[in-house]
């Protein structure tokens, strides 16, 4: 018999003292006190404890160190939210950063921010990956060797002091939205003579500023007010996707797209040569090549000026096939003077000057074109690189500084620059992670991530915002102002610098009644402050129009094409190419992830005899590029479109991203990169970078490079040879013209009569909440912000190109993009976000053999991860196919990268099913808060990650049991429909049909009726 000495527990201290057991008790228990049962229990416990301990022995020793002094605002396990600025691009949207236990885990839009108004695009959502990224440079490097800041500073000041103003000092910046940084750069450069400070963005809009310099005397970028525009005419400006400030513009545009307020409903015409998300949402989309666009601008300018007593301009021809439409556009503009907006995304001063004239004569200045509240977003000076390379080769340059600029990769003269940089005695790059330019610089100064520093932004004249650090710096980094201050022998850390700068420069022009201390605290809390508008913004000078006669775009020769270089909304430049999530997000239009490609029209594809993935050789003069083709309906047949920002050194690391198995294929291409760098084809002309290139020739090759598309079939109509007797159009996306909708709203949606057709009794009433989610398809621009937000909120791993190609992406939310050929021959494009529909009669629930997916009493379809055995029957039986299977154990990144994971959401292991939960962790959080505060949950208080990120507020989540909730109201809207309603699965997700501002189209109506 085993002797066991169990612990004695005493009912009370009294008893303990009375019994004095310690002295009297026999240390060896009498045998009869242990029953057989006890013995078994204890042995069993002991054995399992041993097994458990030995099983865990390989786990690393971790130490949890408590706060020495707990900050009063921190409760472990609860998140705090700080207002900050999005580092994604120069639009500098306002953000709210969720910080959990000292680490930022989610970025969201700041709904109070006066410019971005709460939306946050995919790039902003994914920007948090930059903080924990494995490739960050955490220490400065001197001649490619890790070094100390003292050495770096000595080297810089040593070279500069020897310079004696003989040689030029160049400071090349990319997008610098921060006035503080600009202030310090200027301050630094004033110490030296012969300096050149140039900000040149790879998204340059320098032609607009130049055009204003011509017409108004000041080089400014106005703030465009899409929220005030009843008629929008855009020439190749992708303002919902990438142009200047897409979140702001989307929110403004969306505010006038409510068909239930038809008098406010805007009319949007898009003239474009490629298919952009903006074009996809236009009421009238006119596909033109650049030559035709220029003709059209000239024709419209001549007409408008003639009608509005402006100067007479030489008219031009317009494409015959769109004569009628273009004439209507002019009529519409003339009928909406002061309430229309004409924008142009082409880098041509002449054309932008004409656009200025049109806006001026239509009376839009001061209304939709706000010159007194100018924008600093995407602001660019002239292209400096041609001059720099020239001066470098003439040995005139003493030092070059690069900040947020990577011209070696992004500029057509990159190769030349790369070879010439060594001629400068000092080359410094201030970088967060190494790039092509920094690798060729003698000094790589490691700067902190924007989530680690104090900084500011000034997106438009009247708004300034503060960027807060949210955690201790992860490495030995210094911010640009800190380095420059130190070089100038000035004291002050990042925080002091910002405070001082704001005290001196921002506070005096701020619209505030507070003293500086309170103003500062309020601004840090809110994330932004209002500033006074500019007084004088110049007057229109008609003389300027004389300079517009030069024709920029020539008609393409036979067998020559135009090339348009663009940025994808989800990949706005090479600086983001380190970001696996942005690569994984399917492009809004093509649905292709992990690559760039040459978009060509089906006609051209047929002519060349190529298919998706056939490698084309695209040549302009001596420059050429081999890139896979992608056949895109809607693309103009004379135009090829290629995305910029690909083929970077940073993307080399993705070679082995994704699961490893025998048939796995690498994510990178033959060149070792993700995609191909197309920057060499950009034209640098008259100091402007031009993204529209003429006279390009195409030749085919025998190579193929398979593209990974998240959607394989793109039409609402089934293939022609498979059209069954009952018709081939799937009623997945419903749409109507505004005219039809106004007069016969009841015709739009035919609901199947299913009342009473219930297989189950109503034994599961939803007495409390009944959650629902509605998506207004009219407003969805396919920007994919929601998809990125969902990925980060729910710890959805990135799977790599091969898995996407195999149609095994894990995203819980996808945006379907459909093309439909309308009766008039035009192409309509629709976006449809699809997540788990949380069906009340869920087909997935009945088929699961182990009850791993069940229904909650609040209408949620719940997936119980630890019960799931992975039969995939539920996924097969899901009509929406929105269940996601863990085909492998997915890599969640390095230890540092895993800090991004949301602790509220379980990491799923391989072999189990997962799917959208309606962000159940957010629902529960709000429910707990409301319960603690003994109150009801307010409508709109629970925001799913997708809803929060949507710039156009297309996604609305709420309680359909609450008759006053926004969701309930949307469920009564005549536009509402449920996808595959006829299956009677009773989904909790619904859609509002797309309404386009067109005249009655009875054919369309007949179709839906």
């Amino acid at each position, binding site marked *: 018999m085993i002797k066991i000495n169990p612990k004695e527990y005493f009912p009370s201290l009294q008893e303990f003292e009375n019994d004095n057991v310690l002295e009297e008790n026999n240390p060896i228990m009498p045998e009869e006190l242990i029953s057989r049962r006890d013995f078994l229990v204890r042995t069993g416990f002991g054995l399992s404890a041993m097994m458990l301990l030995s099983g865990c022995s390989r786990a690393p020793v971790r130490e949890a160190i408590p706060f020495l002094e707990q900050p009063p605002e921190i409760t472990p396990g609860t998140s705090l939210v700080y207002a900050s600025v999005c580092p994604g691009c120069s639009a500098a949207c306002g953000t709210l950063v969720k910080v959990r236990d000292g680490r930022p885990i989610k970025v969201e839009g700041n709904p109070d921010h006066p410019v971005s108004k709460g939306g946050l695009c995919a790039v902003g959502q994914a920007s948090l990956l930059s903080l924990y990224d494995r490739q960050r440079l955490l220490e400065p490097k001197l001649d490619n060797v890790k070094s100390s800041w003292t050495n770096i500073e000595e080297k810089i000041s040593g070279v500069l002091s020897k310079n004696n103003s003989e040689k030029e000092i160049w400071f090349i910046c990319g997008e610098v939205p921060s006035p503080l940084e600009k202030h310090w750069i200027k301050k630094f450069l004033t110490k030296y003579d012969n300096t050149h400070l140039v900000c040149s963005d790879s998204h340059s809009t320098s032609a607009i500023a130049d055009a204003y310099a011509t017409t108004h005397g000041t080089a400014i970028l106005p703030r465009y007010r899409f929220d005030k525009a009843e008629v929008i005419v855009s020439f190749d400006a992708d303002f919902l996707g990438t142009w200047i400030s897409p979140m702001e513009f989307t929110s403004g545009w969306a505010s006038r797209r409510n068909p239930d307020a038809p008098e406010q409903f805007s009319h949007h015409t898009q003239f474009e040569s490629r298919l952009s998300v903006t074009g996809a949402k236009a009421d009238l989309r006119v596909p033109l090549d650049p030559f035709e666009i220029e003709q059209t601008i000239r024709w419209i300018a001549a007409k408008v000026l003639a009608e509005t007593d402006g100067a007479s301009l030489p008219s031009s021809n317009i494409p015959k096939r769109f004569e009628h439409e273009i004439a209507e556009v002019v009529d519409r503009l003339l009928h909406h003077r002061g309430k229309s907006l004409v924008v142009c995304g082409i880098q041509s001063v002449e054309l932008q000057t004409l656009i200025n004239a049109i806006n001026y004569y239509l009376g839009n200045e001061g209304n939709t074109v706000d010159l007194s509240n100018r924008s600093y977003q995407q602001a660019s000076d002239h292209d400096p690189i041609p001059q720099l390379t020239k001066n470098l080769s003439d040995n005139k340059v003493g030092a070059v500084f690069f900040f947020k600029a990577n011209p070696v990769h992004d500029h057509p003269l990159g190769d030349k620059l790369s070879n010439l940089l060594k001629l400068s005695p000092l080359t410094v790059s201030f970088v967060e992670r190494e790039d092509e330019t920094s690798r060729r610089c003698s000094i790589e100064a490691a700067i902190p991530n924007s989530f680690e520093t104090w900084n500011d932004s000034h997106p438009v004249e009247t708004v300034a915002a503060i960027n807060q650090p949210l955690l201790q710096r992860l490495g030995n980094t210094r911010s640009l102002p800190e380095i420059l201050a130190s070089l100038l022998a000035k004291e002050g850390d990042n925080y002091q610098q910002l405070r001082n700068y704001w005290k001196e420069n921002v506070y005096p022009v701020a619209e505030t009644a507070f003293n500086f201390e309170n103003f500062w605290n309020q601004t840090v809390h809110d994330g932004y402050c209002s500033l006074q508008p500019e007084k004088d913004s110049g007057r229109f000078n008609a003389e300027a129009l004389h300079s517009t006669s030069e024709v920029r775009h020539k008609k393409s020769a036979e067998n020559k094409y135009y090339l348009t270089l663009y940025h994808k909304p989800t990949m706005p430049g090479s600086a983001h190419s380190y970001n696996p999530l942005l690569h994984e997000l399917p492009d809004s239009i093509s649905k292709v992830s992990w690559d760039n490609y040459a978009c060509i029209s089906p006609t051209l594809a047929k002519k060349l005899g190529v298919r998706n993935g056939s490698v084309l050789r695209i040549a302009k003069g001596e420059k050429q590029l081999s890139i896979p083709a992608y056949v895109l309906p809607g693309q103009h047949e004379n135009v090829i479109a290629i995305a910029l920002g690909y083929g970077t050194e940073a993307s080399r690391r993705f070679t082995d991203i994704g*699961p490893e*198995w*025998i*048939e796995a294929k690498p994510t990178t291409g033959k060149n070792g990169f993700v995609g191909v760098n197309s920057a060499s084809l950009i034209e640098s002309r008259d100091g402007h970078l031009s993204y529209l290139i003429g006279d390009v020739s195409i030749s085919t090759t025998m190579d193929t490079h398979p593209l990974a598309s998240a*959607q*394989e*079939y*793109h039409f609402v109509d*089934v293939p022609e*040879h*498979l*059209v*069954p*007797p009952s*018709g*081939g159009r*799937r009623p*997945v996306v419903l749409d109507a013209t505004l005219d039809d909708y106004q007069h016969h709203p009841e015709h739009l949606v035919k609901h199947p009569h299913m009342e009473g057709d219930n297989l189950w009794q109503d034994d599961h009433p939803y007495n409390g909440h009944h959650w629902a989610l509605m998506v207004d398809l009219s407003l969805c621009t396919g920007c994919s912000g929601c998809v990125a937000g969902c990925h980060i909120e729910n710890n959805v791993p990135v799977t790599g190109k091969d*898995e996407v190609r*195999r*149609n*095994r*992406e894990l995203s819980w939310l996808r945006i379907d*993009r*459909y093309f439909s050929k309308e009766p008039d021959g035009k192409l309509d494009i629709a976006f*449809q976000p*699809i997540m788990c529909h949380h069906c009340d009669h869920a*087909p997935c629930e*009945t*088929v699961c*053999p*182990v*009850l791993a997916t069940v229904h909650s009493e609040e209408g949620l379809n719940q997936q119980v991860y630890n*019960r*799931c*055995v*992975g*039969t*995939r*029957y539920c*996924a*097969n*039986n899901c*009509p*929406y*196919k929105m*269940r*996601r*299977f*863990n*085909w*492998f154990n997915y890599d969640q990144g390095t230890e540092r990268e895993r800090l991004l994971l949301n602790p509220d959401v379980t990491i799923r292991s*391989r*072999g*189990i*099913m997962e799917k959208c939960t309606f962000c159940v962790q957010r629902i529960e959080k709000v429910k707990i808060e409301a319960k603690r505060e003994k109150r009801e949950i307010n409508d709109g208080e629970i925001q799913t990650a997708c809803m929060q990120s949507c710039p156009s507020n297309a996604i609305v989540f709420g309680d359909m049991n609450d008759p006053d909730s926004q969701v309930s109201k949307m469920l009564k809207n005549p536009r509402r429909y449920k*996808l*595959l309603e006829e*299956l009677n*699965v009773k989904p909790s997700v619904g859609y509002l049909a797309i309404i386009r501002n067109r005249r009655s189209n009875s054919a369309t109506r007949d179709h839906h009726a």
Partner: protein
Amino acid sequence: MLDTFTLRRMPLIQGNKTPATVTDDISGLIGQKPSGLWYGAIVLSFSMLIVGVAAASYLIATGIGTWGLNNTVGWAFDITNFVFWIGIGHAGTLISAVLFLLRQRWRTSVNRAAEAMTIFAVICAGLFPVLHMGRPWLAYWMLPYPNTRGSLWVNFRSPLVWDFFAISTYFLISLTFWYVGMIPDLATLRDRAKSKIKRWLYGFFSLGWDGSYKTWLRYETVYLLLAGLATPLVISVHTIVSWDFATSVIPGWHTTIFPPYFVAGAIFSGMAMVLTLMLIARKTMRLEDYITVRHIDAMSKLLILTGSMVGLAYATEFFVAMYSGNPYEEFVFMNRASGPLAWAYWIMVSCNLGSPQLLWFRKIRHSFVGVFIISIFVNVGMWFERFVIIVTSLHRDYLPSNWSNYTPSLVEIALLVGSFGLFFTLFLLFCRFLPVVSMSEVKGVLHIGHHHKGSTDERTSDGRDIPQRERHHERGKNIPVSSL
């Protein structure tokens, strides 16, 4: 007179067999050195099995991602193989149980092998539902066993749970039926066994069989009852398997014709597989006298019958879909016939509907090579039938954005190959260690004494005296068989 009778109806067993030569022939197979063909076959099938084991190990170690499945097509080779193998099993039960009840005496030569085939096919089938799970180590969660996870139970609404019960029942009943039918033969083997181990093993499994009148009587009663029990399973198992699809919402799956369609298909495919196996066994195991034109002819006729039923089901399914007015349903069939996987559909139609029609010709029916080739075609066709049903319905369902394609991975192909390896390995081992033909039953269909007096010679071919017990058993045997 006898001659005219034989002309009209060829004898079931050829070679003037007597009960003793039957015993000698069949149990002799077990002792003797097998033919080179057998060795060749086992090497091949065991290699295939090794490939399958390697693939399964890799699969379990790495994940379902090693298959070619995707978000749209969640099942393909796995469930195709499962339904295919389950279907194969059905012919065994049909031959052994249904034909027994229908007094089809030609079944006696093939029923043992057909039943063995059933068991091995169900083993192969049973592997796939386990392997197709994301977490196969938790497969026991399909069992409704009392557990400590609260009131956690299986979902009795899920057809997969029904499947679990249907298949386990089927396996148990088939195994019992097969085993019970084999007891008299095991006793014979016991009596003839030379080594101690063999004698003990056969003795253990023959459950002390003594060949007495009483034993025979009870044996026949049990056999009859088991046949009665197994008969509904021929219908129920594949009906339940078809519910996996029929109860779903996927067009192409959600159809009421599936239960009869699947049962007919199962018997059809099983018959083809019995033919394939019997023709192989006939050659490799030198059973030319026992598996004769009569057997092949009868099974070929069944192939025509069930093949035509399957063909009718194809036509009905197509017609009903087109008549339904349901665009999704119509599309599935348009897509099957001329979509990207149309080649699979037309393989299915030509193999299942076309090839058996050749069996209308007596010449082809009586040509072993011809029937063998057709049986292979039907096997292929029936595999494709399940592939077509599963993959073409899934890969293009409701939302066009979900549409996707499916290409099998090497691992999936290896698992299919491995399942054939397992099946043939088991079958070849069975041929080697157990009586391939039911000796006791075949003796009942002999025309004893017509040609020579061999049946009275109570000596084995090697001149050894037949032990007393066996003689007793041989004699006692005639009574109950004739009393049937």
